């Protein structure tokens, strides 16, 4: 019995992956996005192990002092920070923070948001009202001010950043998924399922959910972008995790040292990495956007 179910699921999974591959067919930009995100994911995993120095490892000369000239050299491709840390190592090590925060937040944001949207849209009534009111309230709260207050209350750390991002970003996904559910709900095949005696949960997760999946994936892609920028912003303001390193934090340090005018090697790489990662995530989103709104395909 259990064996049968496993092979069934394998088929479903293979079919699912096939479908996803179709989404990306011919979408050069989105495929490029996937590759770049993939590279960052690899860096996130192996990065901290292969870089020459630790992020907070001071490079000192034989006198125990930090060298004056911190510009890039053959030994330090991206040069040094004010305190003698290797910028290249910091940049690579930061991928870990970005990828963890980006992916986990994005998946959770959409998980929470989509489920709320499904339930709200399908059941309607007081549940819908309730969820919508909460969403309205969430919309009224500006993200960054709330984030820094919460970071101060919860303490600094990556997991708290993730919590903050999820707590404030689920709202857009909910609204959008709910709108889609409302249209899908009235379609004949749903009525047919109901008449056939399917339970509500089954209808929601077996019939409606697969149809909102492209929209959900679009929002995962977007949310990765938002989350990475959110973390960078929080860190830039000085509320990042002092024990780890992230691109936002690097920029925070450059600014605090007021060295961004001269030390271009220090403040350009982290920014460029953010641009690269976020843009790649948006490019991936473009492929799903074309699925959701076929009119965007050019004849």
């Amino acid at each position: 019995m259990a064996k049968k179910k496993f092979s069934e699921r394998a088929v479903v999974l293979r079919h699912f992956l096939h479908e996803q591959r179709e989404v990306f067919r011919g979408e050069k930009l989105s495929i490029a996005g996937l590759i770049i995100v993939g590279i960052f994911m690899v860096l996130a995993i192996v990065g901290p192990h292969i870089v020459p120095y630790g992020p907070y490892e001071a490079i000192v000369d034989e006198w125990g002092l930090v060298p004056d000239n911190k510009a890039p050299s053959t030994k330090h491709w991206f040069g040094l920070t004010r305190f003698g840390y290797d910028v290249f190592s910091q940049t690579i090590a930061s991928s870990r923070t970005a990828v963890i925060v980006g992916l986990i937040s994005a998946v959770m944001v959409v998980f929470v948001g989509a489920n709320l949207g499904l339930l709200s849209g399908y059941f309607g009534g007081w549940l819908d009202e309730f969820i919508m009111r909460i969403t309205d309230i969430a919309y009224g709260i500006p993200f960054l001010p709330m984030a820094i207050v919460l970071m101060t209350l919860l303490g600094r750390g990556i997991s708290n950043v993730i919590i903050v991002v999820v707590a404030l970003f689920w709202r857009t996904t909910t609204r959008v998924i709910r709108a889609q559910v409302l249209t899908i709900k009235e379609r004949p095949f749903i009525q047919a399922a109901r008449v056939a005696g399917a339970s509500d949960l089954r209808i929601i997760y077996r019939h409606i959910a697969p149809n909102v999946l492209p929209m959900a994936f679009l929002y995962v892609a977007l949310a990765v972008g938002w989350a990475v920028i959110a973390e960078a912003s929080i860190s830039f303001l000085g509320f990042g995790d002092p024990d780890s390193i992230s691109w936002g934090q690097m920029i925070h340090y450059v600014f605090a040292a007021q060295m961004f005018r001269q030390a271009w090697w220090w403040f350009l790489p982290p920014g460029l990495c953010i641009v690269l990662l976020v843009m790649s995530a948006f490019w991936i989103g473009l492929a799903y956007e074309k699925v959701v709104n076929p009119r965007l395909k050019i004849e």
Partner: protein
Amino acid sequence: MMMKQFGLDQPKLTQYLIYMRNLFTGEFGISIRTNQKVIEMLSGKLWNTLFMMGSAMFLALILGVIVGTVLAWKRGSGIDTGGIAVFLALRSAPEFWLGMILLVIFGYSLQWFPIGLMLTPGTHYTGFFDKYFSWDFIHHLVLPVFTMTIFYLATPMLVTRNSILDILHEDFIEMAHAKGLSDGRIMFRYALRNALLPVVTIAPLMLGFAIGGQVLLEKVFSWPGMGRELVEAVNSMDYPVVQAAFLFLGAIVIIGNFLADVLYSYLDPRVKVG
């Protein structure tokens, strides 16, 4: 004795009522850090923030709609793909970083604009209008507003473009062509007019994020606004100031939402307010 001063010896309900009354009369208490009345500290900062954010949002919306319309018109061409690529790239960059880059190029290297602050230190102003409508102020305003505008431009631009492309498939557009109306008139009076509606819907969302942008850019450009006060207050655990600053920023979002609703009902005759 301090309990009595802050009314903490009263029952909870009374405390709450006093709090609400204070809120409405602008009585926000005393800053723990500076011992000044909070309302005095913050009132000036509110205008600084509003001017910067207001100008940037206004420009971002107007320019975003115009650029979006042009891109929709030139759909598929190099201008279209190029335009989208450029603004998407700008949107993917952390805006504080963009601000820093612009500061280095235009402030330090070219020296066209001052390096932060709102007004040249030491100058004296006689009043509200004199201060905010002086060349000095505008000179200082350019870089921060420019940074914010090019960052936030992407959203209304994409929404407008997609909205117009959708609308161009509608039957009333074909009818407009059949009536012999010119392309330009159709684009602006028929397509754009209808495409504005989704833009007005997303404007409040932009506002929520724009406040974040404002906080960040106030740090980069040392702009003496509400955002900077909030950050400093949070860092020094100055609760009354945190509360007040947060309230002001939240109020901006809510009022913005309200204005957007009003504007929407004006633009769409199918919707009535209330």
